[in-house]
């Protein structure tokens, strides 16, 4: 028992040490990310000192880019499941060894989600009021309490699965199926639940007709399953380039077909929503009018949403054409899809829900500089986490970081190559 604990601590130590070792590109990348993190931290300290007045939010538009990014990133986290399903349900060979990269991305995305909700709190010092048992978590009535539980649960599930698989690989033994397969299947349903619950956060508000629509949930899932795997396609290519880890083109093309189908569904659901809003022409269309065409001379979101729609449609057409079998065009369509969905699921979903206010006033929202710096900081923090995870996972998966070579002096030097 004690030996096992000591071995595990040794594994953790070696993993954390390797995160500090790399070539000059690695240091440059980590240095830049750390810089952004610190600038973001500085901006957050200002917000902590002076309050949310440092953001662009107001009583009229009381949620902004923090919650927008949060919403988008929950989708990214949920999308790891789109690699898990082919591997564990359809026994897809190409993706088998890659699924862990998707799960690690989910962990990093959840870190970012938790950071984004924390910076959105007016009283972060009272976070303990949310802890079940100690605080007063309003479960099951409040959808936000559901979100707290499902997000943290999803984090634990993924940390367990990734951690266990990597540790057994490190030890050079076969993972015990009963100790992770059940969790993989729970995580599949859990992934869908985190994004559904996040959608219900909005859908449940009867006073906001823009959100109070059944289609919001399905649209969340469709867009998440487009943007998430698109992000993974790009991430895998970066991994392939900067490490000697082998990733086949076939695996990327398998992910392409997932992005393809999800994008078609996503655009279809968008059309359904636009039709329902504008054809019937009742009074509740007013937020959509603001979003797509502007209202009483206010049209801050109009260029954004049309950019998003153009990007999404272009990405869909590219993905449908055989041209996107070439990696260059596939990457273009993935980038378009990610940016398009980030706009549409973030700002395009959160802000119009507040405009006009329930009393009919039109007050626009623009993120402040300080608020934007915090967002960049959190994104940098997420990328920093993901880089560190990969820095640890890749040598383990390649069999270079093993229990058997823990005593070899200079083992780290070999691993870095």
């Amino acid at each position, binding site marked *: 028992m004690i030996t096992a604990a000591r071995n595990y601590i040794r594994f953790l130590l070696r993993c954390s040490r390797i995160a*500090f070792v790399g*070539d000059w590109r690695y240091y440059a990348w980590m240095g830049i990310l*750390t810089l952004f993190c610190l600038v973001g931290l500085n901006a957050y300290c200002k917000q902590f000192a*002076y309050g949310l007045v440092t953001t662009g939010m107001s009583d009229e538009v*009381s949620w902004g880019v923090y919650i927008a990014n949060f919403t988008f990133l929950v989708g990214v986290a949920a999308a790891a499941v789109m690699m898990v399903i082919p591997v564990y349900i359809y026994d897809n060979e190409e993706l088998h060894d890659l699924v862990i990269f998707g799960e690690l991305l989910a962990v990093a995305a959840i870190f970012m989600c938790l950071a984004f909700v924390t910076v959105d709190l*007016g*009283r972060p010092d009272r976070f303990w*009021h949310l802890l079940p048992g100690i605080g007063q978590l309003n479960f099951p009535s409040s959808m936000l309490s559901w979100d707290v539980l499902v997000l943290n649960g999803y984090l634990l599930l993924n940390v367990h699965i990734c951690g266990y698989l990597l540790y057994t690989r490190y030890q050079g033994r076969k993972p015990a199926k009963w100790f992770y397969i059940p969790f993989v299947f729970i995580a599949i349903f859990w992934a869908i639940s985190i994004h559904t619950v996040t959608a219900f956060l909005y859908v449940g508000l009867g006073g906001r007709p823009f959100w109070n629509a059944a289609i919001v949930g399905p649209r969340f899932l469709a867009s998440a399953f487009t943007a998430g795997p698109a992000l993974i396609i790009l991430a895998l290519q970066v991994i392939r380039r900067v490490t000697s880890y082998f990733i086949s083109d076939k695996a990327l093309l398998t992910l392409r077909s997932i992005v393809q189908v999800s994008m078609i569904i996503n655009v279809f659901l968008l059309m359904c929503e636009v039709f329902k809003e504008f054809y019937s022409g009742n009074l509740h269309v007013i937020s959509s009018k603001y979003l797509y065409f502007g209202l009483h001379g206010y049209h801050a979101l109009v260029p954004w949403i049309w950019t998003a729609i153009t990007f999404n449609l272009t990405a869909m057409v590219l993905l449908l054409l055989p041209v996107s079998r070439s990696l260059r065009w596939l990457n273009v369509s993935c980038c378009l899809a990610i940016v398009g969905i980030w706009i549409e699921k973030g700002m395009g979903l959160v802000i119009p829900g507040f405009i006009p206010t329930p009393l009919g006033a039109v007050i626009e929202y623009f993120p402040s500089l300080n608020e934007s710096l915090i967002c960049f900081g959190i994104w940098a923090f997420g990328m920093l986490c993901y880089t560190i995870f990969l820095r640890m996972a890749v040598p383990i998966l390649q069999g270079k970081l093993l229990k058997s070579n823990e005593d070899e002096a200079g083992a780290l030097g070999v691993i870095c190559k």
Partner: protein
Amino acid sequence: MSTPENQPNGEPETPGMSRRSFLRNSAVFATGLAAMAASLRPLFETTDFPSSEQFLQKYYKELNPEEMQKVLTRIEGEVERQYGIRPHVRDYKPMDGVEYVYCLNLTRCIGCRKCVHACVAENNQSRDPEIQYIRVLRMPHGSLDIEKAEHNYAPEQVPEKGYFYMPVQCQQCHNPPCVKVCPVHATWQETDGITVVDYNWCIGCRYCEAACPYWARRFNFTKPSIPKDRINPEMSYLGNRPRMKGVMEKCHFCIQRTRAGRYPACLEVCPAGARKFGNILDPESEVSRILKTKRVFIQLKEEMGTSPRFFYYFDV
């Protein structure tokens, strides 16, 4: 660059670390610490860092009478330190057999906004930034469509021809969406129908503000400021005591007045007699009589199913 020397900390696994790499690693470490300290600097500008009593204060409903008394005394001290005036902070409880209802006569309201300012004065609302619980809407004749409301009307004289005025504040719903969505039970409905906020429990997520169909909630985006000579020293825990940065507040039917048997400030100041308030459980009360005898009265956004305790009626 892939030698073991690159480790920033001298772990035993790195045999024979050179003097040069030790110096370099120390320099990197020191720079990192300095950068960290520099980015944390704005924290020193915080003027309202929570005390340990504030940080650890229990939830309102879990405080026993002695603990409540301690909290009230502490708050009196806090207010005195900040505003130089010793207030009288009480925890008014709801009365048995009382359920408050508000009735507002749309025929009479002239849109003078006296209620808005009386409310600010009574309830120690922040003057900078300005927080107001009541929003008076100017509506064109013949429409109750709230999209047509004008918020910033500023004529020489009210009332204006062709318009009527509709003040909106917390509707004290029977089914309050704000209470349902609060993740920490920081806002709830009391037995007399008033929805209150425990300012010391709210985490400031603003979900209630998004949920309210009447735009009745206000958030303290920064530390509220009230001129010292404008403080109303008669305070209640769930009502008009000064709020802190980062918490939600709202109309509470002037809990410190109404639970002591007085009228809300907005009613007392109304020059048109448009505002009526009372106990709906008392069949002889003015509000009971209005709801029994008036031919038309409405609840705002009735289709929401929130069932407000705030009624608008007409003299017909």
